[in-house]
């Protein structure tokens, strides 16, 4: 008699958060969905979608720019972050201070970091624009790339590498044929953790280009906070963003499945 009761009460601990999720995640999403289909007079319409996809307000252009900037940011982060994560992992046991040094910037509020970056650029007389925005993006999102990579690289069993070396592989081959394939899950999660926030950011571009570079996040922000009567288009843009995030996550789970198969083999 007592056992089922206990189980019930344990489950009950999850209810507050479930209710929270329902109220602050599901309900707002439903509102966004409804708004996307609402016209000026509260009628059901596809006008908002037409307005966005026809690029009348420059929505598609902004999306394109954001995707490119996100892509390039991710690529640069990967190129810089992988070696860093690799060496951090290699010398991990001997020096944890290095890891700390790379995580340290994440403890400073990112707005403060970005504002100080701007101040530095202005002091150095660097023209604010695409270059400075890219710098700010890479600077801010690099830790999100390094951390998952570092975790995966640290957990690689060293005997695989030794085995490869024993079988006559040179250092490059060991790296390319053993370490990289074993760290794919880290690369994938690093890419998602960088790419998704990078395409939706608006503060970095606003601060580091004096609002000259206009990204998807800026556009959504504009529709919701600086104008009336354009919640519809803003909602459509938010939905597009959501779809992009879902696609990214599906891709991640696909690669993860492949990983499972590989490791099972």
């Amino acid at each position, binding site marked *: 008699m007592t056992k089922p009761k206990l189980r019930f009460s344990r489950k009950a601990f999850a209810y507050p958060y479930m209710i929270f999720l329902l109220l602050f995640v599901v309900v707002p999403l439903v509102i966004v969905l409804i708004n996307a289909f609402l016209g000026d007079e509260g009628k059901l319409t596809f006008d908002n979608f037409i307005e966005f996809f026809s690029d009348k307000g420059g929505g598609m252009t902004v999306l394109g720019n954001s995707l490119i900037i996100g892509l390039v940011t991710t*690529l640069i982060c990967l190129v810089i972050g992988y070696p860093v994560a690799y060496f951090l992992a290699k010398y991990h046991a001997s020096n944890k201070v290095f890891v700390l040094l790379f995580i340290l910037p994440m403890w400073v509020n990112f707005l403060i970091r970005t504002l100080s970056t701007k101040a530095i650029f202005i002091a150095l007389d660097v023209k604010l624009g695409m270059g400075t925005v890219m710098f700010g993006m890479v600077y801010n999102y690099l830790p999100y790339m390094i951390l998952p990579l570092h975790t995966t690289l640290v957990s690689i069993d060293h005997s695989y590498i030794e085995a490869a070396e024993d079988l006559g592989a040179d250092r490059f081959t060991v790296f390319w044929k053993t370490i990289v394939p074993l760290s794919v899950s880290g690369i994938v999660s690093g890419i998602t953790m960088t790419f998704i926030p990078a395409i939706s950011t608006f503060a970095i571009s606003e601060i580091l280009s004096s609002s000259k570079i206009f990204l998807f996040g800026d556009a959504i922000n504009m529709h919701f906070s600086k104008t009336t*009567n354009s919640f519809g288009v803003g909602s459509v843009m938010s939905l597009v963003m959501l779809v992009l995030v879902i696609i990214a996550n599906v891709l991640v789970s696909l690669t993860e499945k492949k990983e499972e198969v590989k490791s099972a083999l």
Partner: protein
Amino acid sequence: MKKIIPAVLCVILLLTVVFSAAACTPNEIQVDKLVVYNWADYIYDSKLTDFKEYYKSLTGNDIDITYVTFDTNETMLTKIMQGDARVDVICPSEYAIQKLIESDMLVALNYFDENEYAKGLNVNSDLYEHNSSNVDNDIINKINEAFGEIRVEGKDDLQNMTDYIVPYMYGTLGILYNKYSFMEMNIYDYETINKANWGILFNDDGEGNLLSDELTGSILMKDSIRDSYAATVFYLLESGKLDGKLADDGRAYADMPAGELINAVDDTLIELCKKALIEQKKQLFGYEVDFGKDDLLKGNATVDLAWSGDAMYAVEESWDDALCKPCSEERHTRVYGEEKRDENDEKYYLCKYCKEKCGDYELGYYVPHTTGNIWFDGWVIPKNHEPSHLNAIKLFINFLNNPEVAAQNMLEIGYSSAVSPDAVRSNDGARTALAEAYVVNDDSWERLDEDGNPITKFDYDSWEEFEEYFFDYRDEMDNSNWRYPFVIAETSGGYDRGLNTLGVMRDYGVNNKAVVTMWNSARSTGDNALPLLGWTALAVVVTAGIVALSQFIKFRIKSVVKLPDDANQSRI
């Protein structure tokens, strides 16, 4: 479960006791309530205590004020229109008020009809003073001229805006600029500036040429749709880009007075605006989100589209003891004086060229003469206000039109109060407040510093000197009064600051969406990320090439080196 129920009951019981106790506190004085919905930082600090005193003196009751703020008219409109906010008194801008009246959301105040306003007012009538005569007539005329009669949606009768609002603050849209940078660019003279007009924001000298090469990349535009739109339309008109173009109603844009032009929001004009805004991007430092004062003072930018109040604040902040204006003007460079000390060990600066004492404002504010925009904010009462608060609402509005309160507000906010300058000037309380804030030496009052000693060092030696600065300051490039734009120097050749040149922007109505779309489109065009993609692709290809090449060379070296290895081995 059995144990939980009593526990919950206990808690509920306890809460009820606490709340009823709170509700039953012995209460001899009635506490009235008021909910104010205003812009952030848009009223002086001690307003709550001052109003409490005022309220108590007139009604004998205490008042409990809830002060809520908004940051754009749009957020306020959304909340009020959807009925999300239940407030008693709001302070929106003119076009938002128009929209609210049209949507039948407001109650007529009739502030300027004393008998009507005082009806049902529960106050000690001996002490009550109706302040409507303090409000500047120029403003009321302007509002009447600009909005005329407004038709409430779904009703036939027309409404006067002045029946609904009590103007609070007003100002102009203009150009905040760094005077000394202009001197260095050699464009700081009356003729050049007035020929360039709104073109300053587009780096256009008025004839289609660059105003100055150095201005490129140091212009700030406001990240505000309506203001940027107005400035752009004026620029189009001034630079002749509207010549020969016809509006939807068949009239030529160039023939329209400023007041009509900014309200003629049709497709042709919007399209022209978009072009100009995209073109302007090459000249910009950026769009300012808060306000470009810091960027201007630090020298990051030279020009900014600004509202008069922000501009006045920035200009006052920009005072620099070391700048010598006449010599700077002559030499087209910043001339700083040498630091000296007087007998009281106070710092001052002497110019090394003219040997005069230095000191000047680094920034200036200019409102073009031929076209401009004036805006105002006013207090209104929404229909869904709490009826029992009406007494407090009316007293609050009347309180704000007291000259002393107006002076405090002007000091705090920087914008010009709708209370007329004469009323402020002639009121003792207002004079004391101003004299204190600006440290004016005046016989009529004495001020003590923190230690209780009389103040000996003053910023202004007499009230007259201060009055000339505060009520009569004129920018050299502009010649109109920066605080009271209707007052113009007679020596300037007399230009008109009537409604024809200083337009009021109405609500864009059905065209609102088109303007928003235009602005978004203009903002997204220009700085394209495609080159970035190209460069990245190139970098990837080059890196891949280098890696492939190095691998290839490695492979070749290995195969070459193999031979002697084999030879060695065979020898062994």
